[in-house]
């Protein structure tokens, strides 16, 4: 997805020998990082893949047995896993959707000129860097049904109080709210960077043609911004599918299993029930889902770039 610009460092080797030398040099630069990635990333993944074929339970002294694809078969009939997957998808669609809409709106506003713009923009970035667990705890305080500021605010507006993260029907929207609060600025930042690179000619033409601001936005800005927004969409989708800290800190998947996403169910399987074999199969399934989705998005983008 990173577009390498064409002629950078094009030091064309003169002959076979020097080309081989170039290759060795490249390998020498790359291999420390690749070896480290192999050690800390690839090895654990392969190990997980192997474990997913066993019936290993950490607390069970009986030696593990290889059971083939049985874990995966169990997974397809596991209604708790399916429900967790549905929640994960819902959470991702609503969070990322809101973040994209609000983030682009925010970027368009912040792209105008106004007093203390630099300061306002910097302040708007703070949620991106704030520690998610700390922010989650602040929202836990704010969402407290009896003494939280959010319900007091609703009350002062004459609205009925909400159960927020303590209600089965309100917990997912509450998590969407927290995730949107934290990550909309990221979309804004990427969109702002995109806006800064847009050419000015189409806008001049639009002004001469007397286009309305909305027409200018929808017919010029948005299409030109699409490649940039795609990157924001990709990263936000991946990160929301993986979201763990916020949910764990705020609800631990509760009340009941009302906010249990795949990640949370996985954690429970592995570290509460210690069903390492079965949990491993869910890890592989989640990894495949995220990887597949990412590759699909990247492929679609390449096709769009070509056409």
């Amino acid at each position, binding site marked *: 997805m990173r577009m390498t610009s064409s002629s950078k460092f094009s030091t064309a080797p003169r002959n076979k020998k020097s080309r081989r030398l170039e290759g060795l040099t490249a390998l020498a630069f790359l291999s420390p990082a690749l070896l480290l990635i192999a050690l800390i990333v690839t090895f654990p993944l392969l190990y997980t893949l192997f474990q997913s074929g066993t019936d290993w339970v950490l607390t069970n002294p009986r030696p593990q047995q290889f059971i083939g694809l049985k874990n995966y078969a169990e997974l397809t009939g596991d209604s708790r896993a399916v429900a967790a997957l549905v929640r994960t998808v819902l959470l991702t669609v609503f969070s990322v959707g809101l973040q994209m809409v609000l983030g682009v709106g925010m970027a368009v506003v912040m792209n105008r000129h106004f007093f203390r713009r630099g300061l306002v923009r910097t302040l708007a970035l703070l949620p991106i860097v704030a520690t998610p667990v700390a922010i989650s705890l*602040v929202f836990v305080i704010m969402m407290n049904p009896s003494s939280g500021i959010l319900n007091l605010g609703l009350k002062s507006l004459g609205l009925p109080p909400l159960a927020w993260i303590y209600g089965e029907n309100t917990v997912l929207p509450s998590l969407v709210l927290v995730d949107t609060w934290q990550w909309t600025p990221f979309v804004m930042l990427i969109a702002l960077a995109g806006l800064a690179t847009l050419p000015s000619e189409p806008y001049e033409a639009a002004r001469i043609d007397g286009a309305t601001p909305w027409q200018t936005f929808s017919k010029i800005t948005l299409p030109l911004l699409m490649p940039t927004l795609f990157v924001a969409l990709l990263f936000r989708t991946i990160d929301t599918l993986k979201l763990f800290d916020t949910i764990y800190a705020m609800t631990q998947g509760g009340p009941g299993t009302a906010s249990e996403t795949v990640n949370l169910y996985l954690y429970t399987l592995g570290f509460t029930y210690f069903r390492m074999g079965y949990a491993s199969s869910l890890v592989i399934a989640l990894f495949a889902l995220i990887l597949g989705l990412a590759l699909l998005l990247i492929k679609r983008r390449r096709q769009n770039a070509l056409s």
Partner: protein
Amino acid sequence: MRSVEVFAPKRPPSRGRSNRQTERLNRALALGTSLFFVLPILFVFFWMVSMSFKTQVEISSASPTLFPAAPTLSWYQDLLTRMPFGGYFLNSLIVGVGSTGLGLAFGLPAAYAIARWKLTGASTAVLITRIIPAISYLIPWFIVAKRIGLTDSLFLLILLHLTVTLPLVIWIMIGFFEALPDELEQAARVDGCSTWQSFVKIALPLVQPGLVAASILAFISSWNNFLFAAVLGGPNSQTLPVVVYNLLSFEQANWGPLAAGATLVCLPIVLATLFFQRYLVEGLTAGAVKG
């Protein structure tokens, strides 16, 4: 991507006197709309800090005030004296610096090679590392750590945080190395520089803004990381996010210590952001925009 100066103040084209009033109105409107977005963002931070200075009576009051009526430092004193908060802070710092330093040491040559020889395969591998859910490392590392007796160690946390910092460093730095002009490299070669020499003496000094961006973002991602230390950390390797999270279970419905803890964790990061804001923006938008 280097050319993306998101925060550079651009002068609007000068207009006639008649337009000046509309211009002023437009600016006021833009400021107003931007505050509509920014105020909810700031309120959460404000509420966290404000609550950390409130007395228990004020916190549980049914009609809360924005600012603490009688500001108190007692929650902070409480946190700093009741537990080795300084030690936890140091743990977070060691793991953050360690995983950032190693991420740079391993990541910089790799990013240079990917940019210089256009190794798209390797860059895809880095992207894949970026998208693997952290929890997938957890089970295997949990087992390995138990077997070789490496649980509750800062070294293990540094290794695990590298799964986040290393891909991040490489990802950000590829763009910065790509932006260097070819001629520099060729000139260095004519002068008899080896590839390593031109990497260390020419390329690295020129990508300093990228180094700052990558270092800060890697450090922040390690500082904020909760999952690894929560599962594989122990009494000797607690990091701040875990400590603050644990306050929630100990301090049922006692918001003061919670707010003070959350404030203390966020404080260094927020200060760094305000200080290094320009670099941070460059790092966060790396790879998103073709410059």
